[in-house]
Structure formats: structure tokens, C-alpha cells
């Protein structure tokens, strides 16, 4: 490949941000739209062009545009890198990003601050593209922090609402905890390898086959902390459900399809580090599995449609971590891709429902929307079946690949991880069909709701605006429906990309990604070094699937059955026998309370971390650091006054003579000293 001008890809969105950010307030709406859409479309077209010319790369294409920070041996450049991994990410980010920009035209049409919304969205695209294109950890960190900033601004889009402002702050701070891990990992990388360039770091590790565990474990765990912040994993996941305060397209783009997957991308990018540390790898898998399970249980109890999807996102990200954690990075990335399609679609469809109901987000007052908004219903149905894992939809293929890889992983914990993952798949199917039934089936509770629209005006400023129009439940405009239809088609067909060989496919995506993420093809290695970690021998990717064929079929059937049973239970509880949920919650009150209150995690963090810190800051430090201002200062003033007698007293009185006196005293002291110096010092010599 010749010159690809990768730098143009992020540059165009930032130009869009600058134009709309600086002048958008005065622009007519159509101009704002034009600028923003062009800024999202151009990178997509450029990426499409590159993708069409992309055949294969033996080693990454890197272009460098000058030094950013240089000190000693470290030279961090504005350098961009294209390989199979960033190619896939670019397609997802620009493709889904563009669709959601289009969707937002309709969804945000009535919003005040329309220009501001699109400026922030372009800014987000810029940072996200920097993140996936960067050729070193430091520039990646720029994108990493930048998407956090864009997310902060967009979560707090309705900034006059306290809840939105709080949610934005919470997201930024939980991410910042992760960033501490990322930063420390970078310092360790510099200290041990003298560089932050992906190619150089990974080559250095590759060239040193005896390097295992130890420092790589520490680096891997610190990077994992960063990934947990960005990708909302235990213990830092709590910001994501609150992030739903942002407008729905934001939830779809940032908090489902792209930004939150940055942690998965980072782990896949740094997979050489994880390949060499069984401990760090196991930690990734364990955190992912635990998060997948707990988030799914919390998703079962939510009544706000967006919050169900938020917990679902946390849970699905857990699957991606599980995939990476059993060294099946391409499976993790594949699930990232399919998740971007179905979860973005779920959010967009949910947005369409909310739009139709004039801002209502509570599923308890929905119902019976199937015939009123049929396009929304059918597209969402595709997504629901995809995420629940019904073959041949994309969610089934990618999730099954992860579960299969966990099962065949040589880690002793592999079977346990698989079993939890499988059970969680059932929970996923349950909560998704619960949402489906509550929203689209049964009698319409929205009719009664419409009259109360004004009363419910607490949820969304959208509501207040649309309540004035009080039009009946209506299907969304084309600008919203077309992106949804495209995503629905992708949900149906995208599975073909990774159809497993065991089921007669060719698992194209795994082969495509192999040069970038497969442990067996360490492209960065100078010498081909066998990865002899034993426990973490790059599982799967390049092993012959033939002997496992039967196993793969059995596992696929099993997971389909699990998905079906989840559907069945939801059907029973939320369609056939509507009284069941109430009776069950009465029966299992303790469990219900535990899960309904989200395990009180926010409260526990509040009590165990925030309250003590606040206490220390407020009382201990207040006494030591701040009160010291008055007391210590007063004490010192007192002592000085005694010590220096009348001079100090006059200084305190503040008249000019005192200062003249002080200067004179200093001068006198100098002269005396100089005199003594002259006599003693030069007397001696």
C-alpha cells in the first residue's frame, strides 16, 4: 500500500467540530446538519476506500507526522497505524458512527442546542479515530482521554438537569481511576522498553522469549484496570447505567457501539503482553465473566428501557473480555463488531420507541406498540433475536465462538468460565424478551399515558417539548428508520463473517484478524518465538477445527437451547401469565431486593470509599492543612512577634517605615557579614 493519508480520517471530524462548535450557534439547522454529516461521511468513505484496497498486510502500515513529546530516548510521535485490527475498528467506528449521525438528525430535531450536540458528536468521532489509529500507547491515551471528554460532554448534554451533570461527572471520574492504571502501565513500559510504540514494545517482548509474567503481569493488570474503567467492567462499571442520562443516540454510539469497546480493543492490541502472562490473562477472563453474569442479573430487574440496555452492554462487554481472556482475541473483536450492530440497533429502536411515546422511558407504561410502530418493532425484533443468541443471527455466531473458545481453552478455569457464560446467555435471552414483550405486546398502556404526558415531564426534556405537540403514538421519521433498517440487515447477515468452521463456515474474520492478533503469528517478532506459556497457548485460532467439529455442534445446540429457554420463561412471565412476576418477587423477596437494588454497589462504594475519603478530607485534612492557615499562621505570627520584638510588631502594623527598617536591617546584616567574611576568610588566606 502506498500513501494512505490516515491522518485525514480523524482530521475531517475535528474540522466539523470546529466549524459547528465555533459558529454553529448562529447557523441555520440545515447547515449544522450538513457540516456534521459531511464530517462523519468523509471518513467513512475514506475507510471504505482503504478497506476495498486492503488485501493483506504482513506487517502494519505506519505513517508518522512529527514528534509530539520527546525526552531522552522516548519519542512519541503523531503516528498512525493500519493493520487488520485497526481496519476492523475503523469500519465499525465510521460505519456505525455515520448511521447514528443520520439517525440523530431526526431524533434531535426538536432539541435546543442541536448544533452543540453535533459538534460534540464530531469531536467524539475524532478522538475515537485517534484512539484506534494511533501507533503508540501515548497517542492512544490521547484518544482514550478524549473520548472520555466527549462522553462527559454528551452525557451532560442536558446540563441544567442535576442528574445529567452528576452522571457526566461520575463517568469521567470512574474512567479517571482506570486512567491511573493506564498511566502507570505506560511508565512501566517506558522504564523497561524505552518506548511506547506498539511495534517496538511488542518486538522487544517478542525478541526476548524468556520474558514471562513478572513485569508483564503488572503491566497487564494495570492496563486491565484502564480497560475496566473505559469498558465498564467490575469494579468500575457503575458509571455506565447512569450514563443513560445522555440523549439516546449518544448511548447507542458511545455507550454501546464504540467508546466502551475501547478496553477490549486495547487488550487485543496489547495481546502480546497478555500472551506472556497467564495471571493477567486469567484476570481478564475472570473479570469479564463475573461482569457478564452480574450485569445480566441486574438487567433483569430494570424498568427503564435504556437501563436494561445499559446493563446488557456491560454484560456483553464482559463476554468480549472473556473472549480476550482465553486468548481468543479475534473472537472478542468479532463479538465487538456484532455487538456494535445489534446493540446500536437496540438503542436506536429504543430511542424510536421513546420518540414515539413523547419521551417515555418506563417500560411499565409501554405495551402494545407492535402494530403502531411496525418498523421499529421489526428492526428491534431482529436485534433481540441476535443478542439472545438465535442462529443464524450475528449475536449467536460471535457469542458462541467465545463460549466455544472458553470451553476448549487449556486454562483449568475454562469449563467454569464456559458454564457461567452459558448460563448468562440464558439470562440475556430472558431480559431481552422481557423488554420485547413489555414494550410491544399486551394491551397498550400508552393511551392512558398520553393524557398524563405533561405530568411525566420529569424524564426527558424531549418530553416537555413533544408534549406540546401531543400527537398520538407515531412512527419515527425516515432519517431514523433507515439507519435502523440497515443495522437490522447487518444483524441478520453479519454472522456470515465468522460462521465457524465446525458448522460448515470458514470463520473468515478470524483468519482476517489472525496476522494482527493471533498469538501464533506474532507479526512483530523478529525471530519466530514459540509462545511456551503452556497455560495460555494461543487457543483455537489456528488449531485445526476438525477434531472439535462434533464438540462445536454440541455446544452450539446447547446454547441455542439455553436461548430458547430464556425466551420461554420471558414468554411465560410477561405474556402468558402476567401475574407471575409479582408473585415471584413476593416469594423471593430477599433475592429480589438484592438484585433490584443492584447489589447496593453504589451504596457500598459510597460507604467504603467516598465517605471515608470525604471524612478525611473534611476533618483530618481540614485540621492539618486548612485550619493550619489560621492557627498555624497565628502561632507563627505570635512567636515571631515575641522573637523579633518591636520590629515584628511594627511589621504587623504595616507601615512603610517598618519595611524600610527591615530592608535596612537586611542590608546591615549583609554588611556585617561581609566585613566578618573579609577579616576572617581573607585573613586566613
Amino acid at each position, binding site marked *: 500500500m502506498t500513501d494512505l493519508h490516515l491522518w485525514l480520517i480523524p482530521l475531517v471530524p475535528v474540522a466539523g467540530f470546529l466549524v459547528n462548535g465555533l459558529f454553529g*450557534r448562529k447557523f441555520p439547522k440545515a447547515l449544522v446538519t450538513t457540516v456534521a454529516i459531511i464530517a462523519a461521511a468523509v471518513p467513512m468513505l475514506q475507510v471504505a476506500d482503504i478497506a476495498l484496497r486492503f488485501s493483506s498486510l504482513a506487517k502494519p502500515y505506519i505513517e508518522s507526522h512529527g*514528534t*509530539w*513529546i*520527546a*525526552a*531522552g*530516548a*522516548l519519542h512519541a510521535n503523531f503516528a498512525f497505524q493500519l493493520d487488520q485490527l485497526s481496519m476492523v475498528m475503523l469500519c465499525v467506528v465510521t460505519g456505525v458512527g455515520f448511521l447514528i449521525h443520520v439517525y440523530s438528525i431526526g431524533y434531535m430535531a426538536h432539541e435546543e442546542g442541536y448544533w452543540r450536540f453535533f459538534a460534540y458528536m464530531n469531536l467524539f468521532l475524532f478522538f475515537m479515530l485517534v484512539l484506534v489509529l494511533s501507533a503508540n500507547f*501515548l497517542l492512544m*491515551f490521547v484518544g482514550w*482521554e*478524549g473520548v472520555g*471528554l466527549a462522553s462527559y460532554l454528551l452525557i*451532560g448534554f442536558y*446540563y*441544567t*438537569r*442535576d442528574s445529567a*451533570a*452528576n452522571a457526566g*461527572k461520575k463517568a*469521567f*471520574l470512574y474512567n*479517571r*481511576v482506570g486512567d*491511573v492504571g493506564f*498511566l502507570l502501565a*505506560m*511508565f512501566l513500559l*517506558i522504564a523497561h522498553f524505552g518506548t511506547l510504540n506498539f511495534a517496538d514494545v511488542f518486538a522487544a517482548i517478542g525478541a526476548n522469549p524468556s520474558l514471562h509474567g513478572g513485569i508483564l503481569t503488572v503491566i497487564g493488570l494495570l492496563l486491565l484496570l484502564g480497560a475496566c474503567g473505559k469498558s465498564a467492567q467490575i469494579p468500575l462499571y457503575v458509571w455506565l447505567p447512569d450514563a443513560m442520562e445522555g440523549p439516546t443516540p449518544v448511548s447507542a454510539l458511545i455507550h454501546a457501539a464504540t467508546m466502551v469497546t475501547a478496553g477490549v480493543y486495547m487488550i487485543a492490541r496489547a495481546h502480546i503482553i497478555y500472551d506472556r502472562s497467564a495471571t493477567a490473562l486469567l484476570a481478564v477472563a475472570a473479570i469479564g465473566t463475573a461482569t457478564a453474569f452480574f450485569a445480566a442479573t441486574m438487567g433483569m430487574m430494570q424498568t427503564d428501557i435504556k437501563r436494561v440496555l445499559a446493563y446488557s452492554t456491560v454484560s456483553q462487554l464482559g463476554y468480549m473480555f472473556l473472549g480476550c481472556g482465553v486468548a481468543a482475541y479475534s473472537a472478542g473483536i468479532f463479538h465487538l463488531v456484532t455487538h456494535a450492530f445489534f446493540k446500536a440497533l437496540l438503542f436506536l429502536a429504543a430511542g424510536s420507541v421513546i420518540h414515539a411515546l413523547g419521551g417515555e422511558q418506563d417500560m411499565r407504561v409501554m405495551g402494545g406498540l407492535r402494530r403502531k410502530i411496525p418498523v421499529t418493532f421489526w428492526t428491534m425484533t431482529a436485534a433481540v433475536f441476535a443478542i439472545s443468541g438465535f442462529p443464524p443471527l450475528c449475536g449467536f455466531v460471535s457469542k458462541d465462538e467465545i463460549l466455544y473458545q472458553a470451553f476448549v481453552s487449556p486454562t483449568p478455569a475454562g469449563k467454569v468460565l464456559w458454564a457461567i457464560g452459558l448460563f448468562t446467555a440464558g439470562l440475556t435471552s430472558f431480559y431481552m424478551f422481557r423488554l420485547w414483550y413489555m414494550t410491544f405486546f399486551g394491551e397498550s398502556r400508552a393511551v392512558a399515558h398520553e393524557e398524563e404526558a405533561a405530568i411525566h415531564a420529569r424524564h426527558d426534556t424531549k418530553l416537555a417539548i413533544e408534549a406540546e405537540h401531543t400527537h398520538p403514538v407515531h412512527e419515527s421519521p425516515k432519517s431514523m428508520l433507515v439507519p435502523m433498517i440497515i443495522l437490522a440487515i447487518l444483524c441478520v447477515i453479519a454472522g456470515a463473517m465468522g460462521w465457524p468452521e465446525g458448522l460448515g463456515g470458514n470463520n473468515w474474520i478470524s483468519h482476517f484478524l489472525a496476522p494482527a492478533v493471533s498469538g501464533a503469528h506474532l507479526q512483530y517478532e523478529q525471530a519466530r518465538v514459540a509462545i511456551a506459556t503452556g497455560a495460555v497457548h494461543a487457543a483455537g485460532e489456528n488449531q485445526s477445527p476438525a477434531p472439535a467439529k462434533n464438540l462445536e455442534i454440541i455446544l452450539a445446540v446447547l446454547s441455542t437451547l439455553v436461548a430458547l429457554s430464556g425466551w420461554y420463561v420471558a414468554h411465560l412471565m410477561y405474556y402468558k401469565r402476567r401475574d407471575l412476576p409479582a408473585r415471584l418477587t413476593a416469594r423471593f423477596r430477599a433475592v429480589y431486593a438484592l438484585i433490584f437494588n443492584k447489589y447496593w454497589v453504589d451504596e457500598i462504594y459510597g460507604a467504603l470509599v467516598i465517605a471515608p475519603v*470525604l471524612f478525611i*478530607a*473534611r476533618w483530618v*485534612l*481540614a485540621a*492539618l*492543612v*486548612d485550619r*493550619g*492557615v*489560621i492557627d*498555624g*499562621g497565628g502561632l*507563627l*505570627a505570635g512567636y*515571631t512577634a515575641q522573637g523579633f520584638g518591636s520590629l515584628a510588631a511594627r*511589621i*504587623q502594623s*504595616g507601615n512603610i517605615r517598618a519595611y524600610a527598617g527591615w530592608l535596612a536591617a*537586611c542590608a546591615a546584616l*549583609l554588611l556585617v*557579614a*561581609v566585613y566578618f*567574611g*573579609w577579616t*576572617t*576568610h*581573607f585573613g*586566613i588566606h
Partner: protein
Amino acid sequence: MITFLTLLPLAGGLLVLVVGRSRVVARSLALLVALASLAIALAIWHGFNPAASGFQYEVLRNWAPSLGMSYHVGVDGLGVLMLVLSGMVVLMSLAASWKNEKHGSLYLALVLFLECGLFGTFTALNFVHWFIYWEVSLIPAFFLVRLYGGPNRNRASTQFFLYTMVGSIALLLAFLALYLATGTFDFVDLARLAQHGQLAAAFANLHWGLGPPAIGEALFWAAFLGFAVKTPVVPFHTWLPATYAEAPSETTMLLTGAMSKMGIYGFLRILLPIFPQEMQHALTPLLWLAVATIVLPAFAAWYQKDLKRTFAYSSVNHLGYCILGVCAAAKFTGADAALAQEKSAALTGVLLQIFSHALTAAALFWFLTLLERRAGSRGINDFGGLRKVVPVFSGLMGIAIFASLGLPGLNGFPGEFLIFKGSFPLVTWPTAISVLGLLMTAVFLLAVIQKVFSGPVNPRWQAMPDLTAAERLAFIPVIALMFLIGLYPQIITGMIHSTIAQWIATLTPGVTL
């Protein structure tokens, strides 16, 4: 050139006093002088040869050679950076005062006198007149607080003066002892003696009944006290929040932007070259003081109710990173070339941070000036929803806050990153703990944004005017500079490269970078 630069604001200040009947004339003249000073400082920057080591624009006039006194000025990469910084901060402060009717010709003259003291301090290479400038800059600062400050200005200014005076006395005594031992007040000579190990031998001349190492350590701690109060280093910081809060915000811009840098400058120009062994011996306590200076004020900033106090503590926190970098660079590393590289990175970071903090802190207090003038209030809980009322103001101040928070792409990040990057292999644990400071910084800065700019609009400020066209124009270069340094830090690191290489050569003899 340097002498002219130093005397220009002094003359300008006197002229302002003489012709300053009319405020319009006085402020125009003061601004002109500040502009001219900055222009000369930039000319020096432009003429400075970054490849050459040693001092440039050097002037050495024997004054009273038998008494060790001479007029010796000159700049290296550090000095030239400080000159531009001082010129920039003074100009920003005067611009902020433009519309303040209370700030008449005396105020403007005092600011210019202070600028003279700053220029002098950052160029003097002989202790005697360096110390005069050091003290001379204190006096206008004192009167700026005393005459123009808030309701508790008397107490605050007295406390400020007493603290810095105690530090100054300690510093003075230390240098008198140095002079008695060596017969010179010249920084360059003293550093050379220290480098060749002759300083310790000279201490024997003092006949104090103590061994030379003990004398060296005593002198080091005395000099340290002087700079620790000025910077300040926790626990010598307690004068600062009161002073910063009571001073008019335009003066606080000077205090935090330029005067606090005198302390760090002392660390770099005096402590590190003249007392390298003593710093190595005292490394452990120094490091923990640095960590305390980073972490504790970040917590303290969190529960402040007064925006000026919040940013005052934030200022202490940010300068703590500089102290950490300097201490890490002082560590004894033998002939290890890799660690010498890390020292170079840490010191590069320190200088970047000095400049970047001056810019950010001055900008933040400028915004507070404007806010206070519009609202007559600066309680953190008095506002809310300002983004809706004054979007341009909020947006620009938001950028400055995120710069202070260390967002990559803005000016705060490169310096902090290099300090941490360099310090981490040298002093791993103190650095790792200090990284928590970054977290706390985010906590309190986002709390400020949330309480002031977000939430429901406080009806009291419904009619608050946004930035005027002139104010917007004035902020354009400030904000542009934040992005410039954030994206292209070489504009500064290029100037200081050989100076730092020289420091490293003296700190780690036998290692060439």
C-alpha cells in the same frame, strides 16, 4: 539587554505614578510598558542560542570584588523561559485589571515594580543583588494585597509577609555562611565549587565546631526553607490560601503565575547545583514532602467553599509535581546513563510544568476576576447553570480547567507526563502515589464545573453578561497558547534542551547524554 529589561518596568512604574492622574493614561501606559517588556523578553528568547550551553546575554561587572559582590546577570534556558513567563503573566494581569476602577496608578505602578523584581530575580547570578530583587518583589506584592485586597487583607498580607520573611532570613543566613566559607556570592562559582567537591572543604573555614557535612546540611535546609515557603511546599503553605483568596484576583494571577515560580526557580538555580550532595542525603524526607504537596492540597481543594481558595490549593498541587521532578533528578544514580536520561526527562517536565502552570493558573484567576466582577460573589455554591447564561465564558474557562486537569492535547499534559515518566524509574513509589493526585485533581475540578456551570440556572445570574468582544479577543492568544504547548511542546523543550543536558552533566558526572 537584561539590565535594560529589568529597569524598564521600574522606570515605567515611576512614570505611571508621575503621569497617572488619569486612569486612562495610567493603564494605557502600564499596558504599553508590559507589552514592551514582553516584547524584549521575546527578543531575548529569539536571540537565545538553544544549542549553546552556559549563560548568554551575560554581563559581569566587578562591583566590590573584595567583598565578593559583583553585578552578574545572564540567562540560560531556564532564565529565558522565566523572563517570557513573567512578561506574559504581568501582561495578562494588567489586561485583567483594565476595567477595574479601583486599580489606579499606584496599583499599576506596584505591578510594574513587581515585574522588575521578577526580571531581576530570574537573571541575577550573584546572590547580593539577586536577594535584593527577591525582597524587592515581595514588597509590591505585600502592598498589592494590603491596599487592594478583600476584607481580611490585613491579616492575610501580614501572614504572607511574615512567612516569606522568615524564609528569606533563613536564606540570607545560609548565603552569608556560604560567603564566609568561600568568599564568593556568585551562583556560578558556588556551583562550580560544589561540582568539584571543594565546597565541603571550604566549610572547614567556618570553624563552627561542626564537620563540613553537618554544616552543608544545615545550610541546605536553611536555603530550602526560603524556597519551600515561597513555592510553597507542604507544610509551609499555610499562608497561601488566605493570601490568594484575599488578594485581588488580578494580583493572585501574579502571585500564582509568576511569584510562586521564584520558589521552584530557587530549587533549580540554587539548591540543585550548589547542594547536590545534601539533596541526595535528604532525598527521602524531600520526596515525601513533595508527595504531601501533591496529594494533600488536592484533597483540601475539594471541600473549599470559595473558588479562589479551591484554585489556590490547586496551584499548590500543581507545583508539587515540579518539586517531585526536582527531587527525583537529585537522586544519586552513579554512572547509569539510562537513569540520567530519566532525570533529563523529569527536569524537562518540570520546566514545561512551570510555564504551563503559569499560563493555566493565570488564566483561571483571570476568569475568576471576570466572574467576581460580574457577580460580586465567588462562593462555589452561589452559582449554577452558568453555561446557559454565559456560554462563551463557560466554554473558555472549561478549556482552562481541563488544561489544569491534564487533558492530553492541552498544555498541562506534556509537563506532568514527563515529570512522572522521568520520576517513575528513579523514585517509583512516591511517583506512583503522586499519580493519585491526578485523580483527586479531576475530582475537585469537575466538582467546580458541575456546581458553577451545570445544574439548574440560578435566577440571580439570569442577566449576567457574557464575555465582551474585547475580552474574547484577549483570551484568544491565551487559549491558543494552551493548545500550542499541548500539541507542540518542543516550542519550549527546544529552548531548554542544552541547559538541562548541562545540569545532568553536573548531576551525574561521567555520564554523557
